[in-house]
Structure formats: structure tokens, C-alpha cells
């Protein structure tokens, strides 16, 4: 290797935002920004999805939380919806022929309410008009005539019968429950004794007369129900005629008003026909109704006149443009509507007036925005949504029907034709899961609008400042000074974990702005200052720093063993990131290695006890590949090495410690001690190259905090992959310590550079003869391997000798 590697300069550790380069004094001067910032791809996809007609072009807006997906959807879809014509109104009406199946009626936007008003007024008018005509003199006269007619029809044959009876000297007498026919003499009924005294001929004649009159009487009595029936029919016909007269002129006016809507007129015709047939419902009294029909009415599920009502389920009367509906709680009922019930004489009953709309009804003809996670977590909601989109109709099925057990007869409202654009908003993994596991998903949601986590920083700082201004204004916050904006920009880069990028998580920025504004308010400032922003960042770190502080405390107390000075063979300070709560933090971990004669394997103890994840195990296996290829390409590799994250109890995942693990192995093999003042992070490949890792800022800061707690010596520092230098946005105190030479950050490309820093001994480049310079790390490792090979051979020879000739 060449000369000793220099630590990174201060400028490489943090990329400041030059406040002077921002062309404003406060954000009050900035124009608002059309969100989302830097999400052109997602925006274009959203525009395409919103504009595409035809089935299947529903939109899935995916991306991490807080990047402004909903805001973008509201803006893009809202703009398009407002330019489109309003959607139709919808009503449910009683189907007089089949009340179990309410009819759906589509009306132009804004006319459902007036249709309901007209029908309600019609019913009110009928309640006055019908009793008036039925209580009028004309009707009563005609009814009286019919009753007289019935009376005459009943009495005439009776009078004739009585007359014939008297002609034959018999009479009809009334008993408590019927009639008798008896002979008469001198106007009085003949008694038994007198009858027996009559000549036999006379007795026989009277008996015959009695029998004949009885026969006629029976015939007459049997004919009575027919007369009554005919009378009832005549009364019904009269009622129809009179009701039609009462209804007709009221309906004529409505028919004319709704003539442009034949379906509405058809309903009015149906109302008329039903009113005429059930005119008693409009008459207060119960005249003409028997007890049974009164009871039927009493127990009727639908109060009599309610059946003429109009159940307006969607009214777009006060809206401009197509509907845009956000359903925050997409339960089955909230999406597809429900059928309510009410208690009636101890049972639950329902009718068409209790059909309630869902979000799909309200969004029909426009746009429906749903949260994908919430939708998928609701029973039946997702499956039923696909079914509705497939069938292009909204069907209100009681959930129990979907479960497969019915609660008896229920309503089956007529399905409503569906034309809606569904926009699902959710995380990426939901989109990926649905794509992989639901074969119907791609057919319905052909447009994916994917939001990035980050946006490029270069050229976007001013736009980001406008974003800050927009968010602040939307939340009613104070303007930010130019320097405060610069600090927000820097923090956005830190949130992106990249000095060259800015976070797209608008929500996090909005939260920071609110908290900084609060600080400015407490300080009595009209404009938010950079110290307010910094105070908000620090306060948030403090609020979420309990676990981090406890860990540092335990390291300081020696409970968690981390050396920050001295030297130890086969022991390296590795670094990991702990995600506990809202803010991740870096944690140093002691990595140790042991080597012995073996079969050429590197054992990952974390994996053995199932505390290590697959990526970590992969990293460890790579170490074996590197060691064997570098030191035993043409000879056996009789090594068994074990690696362990000391005091790790929560599991290890990722390969970001593989460079440190390799250094620990090299130390173990070479016998060279490692400087404990230095920690290392980075993954390594089989060529020994150090590759970028995540959380580099947190890792550096985590080791810095431990060192600072014990006192910065100037010898302490962290080795990071060079590929991570562009990600560095370190805390101000870390940068300052580095600038003052109290702490160091080295960027390396290869494990040889890392091992040189850690051991202070040159790694040693391989010569043309395949050997390494004497005293170098690699020479020592190679020599140790040679010893192990010799020992392995000796063991093999001993074993052969013990086993004897074959």
C-alpha cells in the first residue's frame, strides 16, 4: 500500500446549504410551490391515470408515508374533477309490485332533491285532497246509493221469500243464531199440539211448504256473500274513480314538470296506480276496513304513506364538477352502502327508505380515493370493490349474505351502474404484494404512480425553499429567514441520508416547521431563525433519545464492553444502526474473531443461534471467499474461524459489519493488535473492496458519542466506505471535533486500507512471486496459514498411520 491514509477534511463531512445563495430574505417573499416537489414521474402517472377512460385504468399511488401522495392526489384529481361535468343524482324508490327490490332512479345532478320535494308535496296534497273528495257530499251520496242498492238486493229476495212463505201459511222467524220456518194460523205460529191436530194432508202440505221455503232461504243466504262481494267491488270501483279524480289533476302538473325524464314520470304513474288501489291509506278513519286489514296495516313493515317517498341517496345539487370522494374508513358498509333496520313490534324491519349510500355511490361519475392498507384490512371490502369494478355496478348486499348465512328476507336494491375512477394510496410493499399475489389486481389498477423518497439536491434548493414557504403558509406558520431555510435544507439532506439529495417526506419537514415555529413563538420572534430550526431538531432528538442515552450510559458504566483506547488482537469496533422509535441511532458493537485448525470455514455465531439474518450470513461467507482466494488459492485452507457480535441480544442483520469482521479475522490470523480507538463500518466483497452501507451518519455519531463521553483524544475515529462520503451530513459537533483534530473519519476503498489504519502496520501488496513484504499484515496472515497447513498435514499423516495400510 502507499502512504498512510489521511482522514477526511471538514468539507467532506457535511455539505452546508449556502444561505447567501438563496435569493430572498424570508419565505414570505416566495411563491407557493405546486406540490409534489421533484415527483414528476409520479405526477405524470397520476395525470395519465386520471385522464384515461375505460376499465382497468384505476390508479395506485405508491410511495413512503409523508411524501405528499394524498396532497398530490387531491390537487391533480381535484383539478381534473372540477373541470368535468357533475355526476348524476340517484334515488331509491319503492317498487310497488315488488317492495323487496327497490328501484334505482338516475336523475340529472341537483334534480333528486326537487323530485323528492315534489313527491312529498304530492303525498301531502293527496292527504288533503283524497279525504276531501271522500267526505264530500257527492261521494257520500253515491256510496249511500250503493248501500241502498245492496240493501235492496238483499231485502228484495227476502221480502219475496217472506211473501211466498205467507202465501203457503208459513213464516220465517229469527233465532239467536239463524232462522226457522214455522206454520202460522191467524197470524201466530202454530204450536206442536195444534199442529198434530191438523189433518195429515194439511200437515204434509205444511211440511212441504216449510221444506220448500227452507230451501229457498238457504239459497238466498248462500247468495248473500256474492251480493256483498259485488257491493264491495262496486264500492272499490267508485273509490278508484273518485281517487283517480283526486289524484289525477295533482299528478298532471307533476307529469308536465318531469316530462323530460320518462323514468320519473313512470314512477309518478306507478304512484297514481297504487294510490288509487290503496285509497284508504289516505283516509283517516278505518271505514270500510275490517279488523284483519287494520291489523295488517298496523303490523305492516312500511308505514302506509312512506312507500310513496323518494330516498335520495346521492345529491350533487350543490356541487360543481365531478365528485371527488376521500373515504378514510373504507369498511364494507361505508363503501357499498347498507340497509338499515328499525324495530317494529319487537322485530327488525326495513324498507327502501332505509337504504343508505356508500362512498362508491357518492363518487359514482367521479373519483374515489382510498387508503390501500385500510381497504385491505376491512373484511370483504377489497373483494367486493373488485367485483363492483368488474361488473361496473354497485350492489348493496347485506354482509350476512356474503358470509353465506342469510337473516331471512331482506331487500335487494336494484344495482346502480358504476363509472368511477378509483385511486388507491399506499406503501410500495402493498403494491408489490398485490401485484404478486392477486391476479386480478393488475387488470384493475394498470396505472402506478410511484413517489420517490428523495429528490436531487442540486438545483432544487430554491424549489425546496418554496416548498418550505408553501407548507408554512398552509399551516399558518411564521415565515422563515433565509438562514433558517438553509438549515431546513441541510436537515432534509440528513433525512435523505445523502448530502446530494433531499428528503421527499414532506410530512417530516412540515413537522419540523411547526416545531420551529413554536420555538420562534416562545422566543417572541416574528420570523423563524436558524436557531429555532436547530432547537426543534435537537428537541426531537432528545424526545426520542431515551434508548440511545441508556445505551451510552451502559457503555460508560462498563456494562456494555466497548474499548475506545488501547489495542486488542482479533477485536474490532463494529457499528450498527438501531431503529428504536422515530429516530435511528448508531451503536458500536465489539466484534471478535477466533481461528483454529479446521475445514476452511468461517462460522457466523449469530447465524448459529438464529440471531443473524441471511444478509449478515452472506457477508460472513464472503469473508471466507476473500481469505481463501487471497491466501489459499493454490493450497488447502485448513482454517476454522468464528465471528461474533459481542453482547448482541436482539439480532443482527445486514452486511455493513463485514469489513470490521474481516479486519478482526486478519488480526486474529496475523496476531497484530487492533487500535480500539477506531471503529469501522462497510461491507466487503470477495475482492476485499469496501462497499457502501446505510446509516453511515448515525454510525459515526454513535461512536463519536461514546468517545466524547470518555474524552476525545484525537486518535479516535471511524473508518467508512469511500462510497459513503457523499452521504455524510454529520452533526455539527462531530464536524467541529474533526475540524479541531479531536476525531477522524477515514474513507477507504479496500480492506487493506482499513486494516492498515486499525493495526498501524502496512497491509502489504502481493509480489510477483506470490509473497507479501515481510512484516506486513498479509505476510503474517500468509505465514500463519502456512503453519496451519503444515499442522493439518501432520495430523493427516498421523491419522493415516493410526488407521494402517488400506
Amino acid at each position, binding site marked *: 500500500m502507499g502512504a498512510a491514509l489521511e482522514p477526511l477534511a471538514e468539507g467532506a463531512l457535511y455539505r452546508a446549504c449556502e444561505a447567501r445563495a438563496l435569493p430572498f430574505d424570508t419565505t414570505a417573499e416566495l411563491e407557493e410551490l405546486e406540490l409534489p416537489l421533484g415527483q414528476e414521474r409520479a405526477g405524470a402517472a397520476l395525470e395519465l391515470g386520471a385522464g384515461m377512460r375505460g376499465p382497468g385504468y384505476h390508479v395506485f399511488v405508491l410511495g413512503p408515508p409523508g411524501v405528499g401522495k394524498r396532497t398530490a392526489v387531491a390537487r391533480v384529481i381535484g383539478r381534473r374533477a372540477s373541470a368535468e361535468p357533475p355526476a348524476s343524482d340517484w334515488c331509491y324508490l319503492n317498487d310497488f309490485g315488488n317492495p323487496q327490490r327497490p328501484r334505482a332512479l338516475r336523475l340529472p345532478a341537483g334534480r333528486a332533491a326537487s323530485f323528492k320535494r315534489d313527491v312529498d308535496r304530492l303525498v301531502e296534497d293527496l292527504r288533503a285532497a283524497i279525504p276531501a273528495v271522500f267526505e264530500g257530499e257527492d261521494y257520500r251520496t253515491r256510496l*249511500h246509493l250503493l248501500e241502498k242498492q245492496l240493501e235492496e238486493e238483499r231485502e228484495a229476495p227476502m221480502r219475496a221469500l217472506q211473501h211466498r212463505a205467507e202465501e203457503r201459511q208459513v213464516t220465517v*222467524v*229469527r233465532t*239467536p243464531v239463524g232462522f*226457522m*220456518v*214455522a206454520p202460522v194460523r191467524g197470524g201466530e205460529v202454530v204450536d206442536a199440539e195444534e*199442529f198434530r191436530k191438523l189433518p195429515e194432508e194439511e200437515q204434509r202440505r205444511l211440511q212441504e211448504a216449510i221444506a220448500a221455503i227452507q230451501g229457498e232461504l238457504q239459497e238466498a243466504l*248462500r247468495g248473500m256473500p256474492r251480493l256483498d262481494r259485488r257491493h264491495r267491488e262496486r264500492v272499490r270501483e267508485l273509490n278508484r274513480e273518485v281517487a283517480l279524480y283526486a289524484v289525477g289533476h295533482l299528478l298532471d302538473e307533476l307529469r308536465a314538470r318531469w316530462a323530460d325524464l320518462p323514468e320519473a314520470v313512470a314512477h309518478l304513474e306507478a304512484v297514481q296506480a297504487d294510490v288509487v288501489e290503496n285509497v284508504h291509506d289516505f283516509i283517516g278513519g278505518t271505514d270500510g276496513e275490517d279488523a284483519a286489514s287494520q291489523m295488517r296495516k298496523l303490523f305492516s313493515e312500511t308505514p302506509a304513506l312512506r312507500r310513496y317517498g323518494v330516498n335520495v341517496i346521492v345529491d350533487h345539487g350543490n356541487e360543481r364538477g365531478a365528485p371527488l370522494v376521500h373515504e378514510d374508513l373504507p369498511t364494507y358498509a361505508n363503501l357499498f352502502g347498507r340497509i338499515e333496520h328499525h324495530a317494529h313490534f319487537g322485530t327488525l324491519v326495513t324498507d327502501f327508505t332505509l337504504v343508505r349510500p356508500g362512498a362508491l355511490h357518492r363518487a359514482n361519475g367521479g373519483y374515489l380515493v382510498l387508503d390501500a392498507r385500510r381497504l385491505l384490512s376491512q373484511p370483504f371490502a377489497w373483494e367486493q370493490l373488485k367485483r363492483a369494478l368488474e361488473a361496473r355496478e354497485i350492489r348493496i348486499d347485506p354482509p350476512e349474505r356474503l358470509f353465506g348465512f342469510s337473516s331471512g328476507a331482506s331487500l335487494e336494491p336494484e344495482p346502480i351502474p358504476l363509472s368511477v375512477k378509483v385511486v388507491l394510496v399506499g406503501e410500495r410493499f402493498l403494491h408489490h404484494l398485490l401485484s404478486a399475489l392477486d391476479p386480478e389486481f393488475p387488470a384493475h389498477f394498470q396505472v402506478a404512480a410511484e413517489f420517490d423518497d428523495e429528490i436531487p439536491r442540486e438545483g432544487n434548493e430554491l424549489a425546496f425553499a418554496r416548498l418550505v414557504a408553501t407548507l408554512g403558509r398552509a399551516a399558518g406558520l411564521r415565515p422563515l429567514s433565509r438562514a433558517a431555510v438553509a438549515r431546513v435544507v441541510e436537515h432534509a439532506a440528513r433525512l435523505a441520508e445523502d448530502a446530494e439529495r433531499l428528503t421527499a417526506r414532506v410530512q417530516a419537514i412540515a413537522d419540523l416547521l411547526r416545531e420551529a415555529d413554536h420555538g420562534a413563538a416562545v422566543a417572541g420572534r416574528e420570523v423563524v431563525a436558524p436557531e429555532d430550526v436547530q432547537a426543534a431538531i435537537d428537541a426531537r432528538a432528545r424526545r426520542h433519545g431515551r434508548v440511545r442515552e441508556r445505551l451510552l450510559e451502559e457503555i460508560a458504566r462498563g456494562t456494555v464492553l466497548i474499548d475506545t483506547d488501547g489495542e486488542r488482537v482479533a477485536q474490532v469496533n463494529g457499528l450498527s444502526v438501531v431503529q428504536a422509535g422515530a429516530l435511528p441511532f448508531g451503536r458500536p458493537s465489539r466484534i471478535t474473531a477466533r481461528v483454529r485448525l479446521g475445514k476452511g470455514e468461517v462460522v457466523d455465531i449469530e447465524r448459529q443461534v438464529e440471531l443473524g439474518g441471511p444478509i449478515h450470513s452472506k457477508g460472513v461467507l464472503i469473508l471466507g471467499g476473500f481469505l481463501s482466494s487471497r491466501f489459499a488459492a493454490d493450497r488447502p485452507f485448513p482454517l476454522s474461524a468464528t465471528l461474533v457480535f459481542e453482547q448482541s441480544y436482539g439480532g443482527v442483520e445486514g452486511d455493513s459489519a463485514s469489513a470490521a469482521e474481516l479486519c478482526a479475522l486478519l488480526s486474529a490470523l496475523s496476531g497484530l493488535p487492533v487500535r480500539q480507538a477506531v471503529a469501522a463500518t462497510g461491507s466487503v466483497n470477495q475482492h476485499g473492496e469496501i462497499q457502501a452501507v446505510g446509516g453511515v451518519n448515525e454510525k459515526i455519531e454513535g461512536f463519536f458519542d461514546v468517545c466524547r463521553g470518555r474524552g476525545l483524544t484525537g486518535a479516535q475515529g471511524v473508518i467508512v466506505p469511500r462510497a459513503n462520503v457523499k452521504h455524510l451530513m454529520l452533526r455539527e459537533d462531530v464536524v467541529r471535533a474533526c475540524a479541531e483534530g479531536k476525531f477522524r473519519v477515514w474513507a477507504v476503498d479496500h480492506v487493506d486500507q482499513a486494516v492498515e489504519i486499525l493495526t498501524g502496520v502496512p497491509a502489504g501488496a502481493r509480489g510477483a512471486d506470490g509473497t507479501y513484504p515481510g512484516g506486513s499484515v498479509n505476510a503474517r496472515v500468509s505465514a500463519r496459514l502456512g503453519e496451519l497447513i503444515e499442522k493439518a498435514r501432520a495430523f493427516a499423516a498421523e491419522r493415516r498411520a493410526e488407521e494402517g495400510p488400506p
Partner: protein
Amino acid sequence: MSPPGLRRVLVALDVATSGGGAAAGTAELAAALGAELEALFVEDVELLRAAGLPLAAELALPSGAARALDREALEAQLGAFAAAAREALSAAALSHRLAFRFRVARGNPAGEFLAAAGPTDLLVLGRDPRLGRRGTTGAVASRAGTPVLVLGRGGGTGGPRWAVYGGSPSCDRALELAARLAGGAAGLTLLLAAATAGEAEQLAARARARLPPGRAPATRWLGGARRADLVRAAGRSGALLLMGAGSPVLAAGGLERLLDELDAAVLVTR
């Protein structure tokens, strides 16, 4: 205080006319008059005679099915009939806290009713049956010397009180009774039975003079003084029509014919 001569409401009951069909209305009437309530049920001897005939048979309502009927079975039916009527009237009397008596007699209903009715009674009669021997109601109503209430065709005692006024003394008594039953002159409708409008005016003035002071009753000229004028004017009113026996609308034995032509309840004073 009951009006002079009316201390008892006597309900005439027999199988054919069944005057107990308006128990509640009758009791209400008795309460309004401050009278006691009594019912007389007459077992028609002719009916019993018929049941004693050989091969006597009854055609039962409503089917007309024939079945044998002897005297014993008929007496059982009459007993049940009387018990039901007694129960209904007793309950109605109790609800108005009226003194109540129920008597059973055997004989000719018309004769028994006329004999039982005293000068201080209001005799309540049902209507003759549509089929069978008729004439009891008309005969009793015409011959009784006491006020008679003939129930409406449906069995009711009528709704509003309408006094048919013709100016005779009996009409005056009917007017006073009507006002009493209507709770005052204001609740009364006066039907003036006069040949001319001028006479009607005079009758109205006379009637108002006989009524207690207060709001005057509604008046209406029948357009004539004949029975037909009354039938035309009040035929479907559903009212209780009160009139004196000397009213011109009942001239020439017109009560029986009026009852044939009119379904409404009619109360005739003497």
C-alpha cells in the same frame, strides 16, 4: 237532574230486534239524562212454539246450513243471548256508574215492551230484522206512551244531536231533550220542518226562545215539512234525530214508514 218524566232508560231486547247492540251509547245516554239503566229481554213465545214443532230445523247463519232444533236447544241459545246482552250492558253501565237491572220475561215482545214501559221511561228499541216477521219496532214505537229511541240501522245511538222542530208541544219537549243531550243549544242542530221559508224563520225564533240562553244552535230548513224532506235532509247524517210525536214529518202514521226509510237513530217524544 233528569228531565221530568225520564228517570229510567229501558232497553228492549229480543232476538229479532236485538236492541242491546248499542250498550255503550245507551249507557252514555242514560248518564246524560241522569237516569238509571234497565234492560228487559223477552223470550218470544212464538219462537219457542216453532222450536216445539216436529221436525223443527234451524238454518244457521251465515251459511244457511240446516240443523235440527228443539225447544231445549233454543232455550239454551236464548240464555246465552241474554247473558251476552246482560254482560255488555252491565259493563257499559258500570263505566258510567249507573244503576243497572236486567230482567227476562217470556211472551210477545211488543206486548211485553209496551207493558213494561212506564211514563218516566225512555224506551230503547232495536230495528226489525231484514228477514223474518217484522213489525215489532214500528208497532212499539208508534203505540208507546213514553219517549222511544229507535236505534240506527247499524245499532248505534247516533252522533250529533239534531232536533227536528215543528212547533208542537211534543216538538218543544224533543227540543229540550235534544239540547240536554247535546250539552247545550250550541251543540245542537235544528232542522226546521216548515212548509215555507217564512214559517221556518218563525219556527227558528220560537225554538231559540225555548232554548236556554247562550250560543244559538245551527239551524237548517228542511225545505218542507214532509217525511220525505226529512229523509232527504238527514238520511245519511249519522245523527240522532229527536222529534216530537206531533211533528208534521210524522203525520198520518208516518213513524213506521220513517223508520223503514231512515237508517239513522230516531228519538220520539210524546
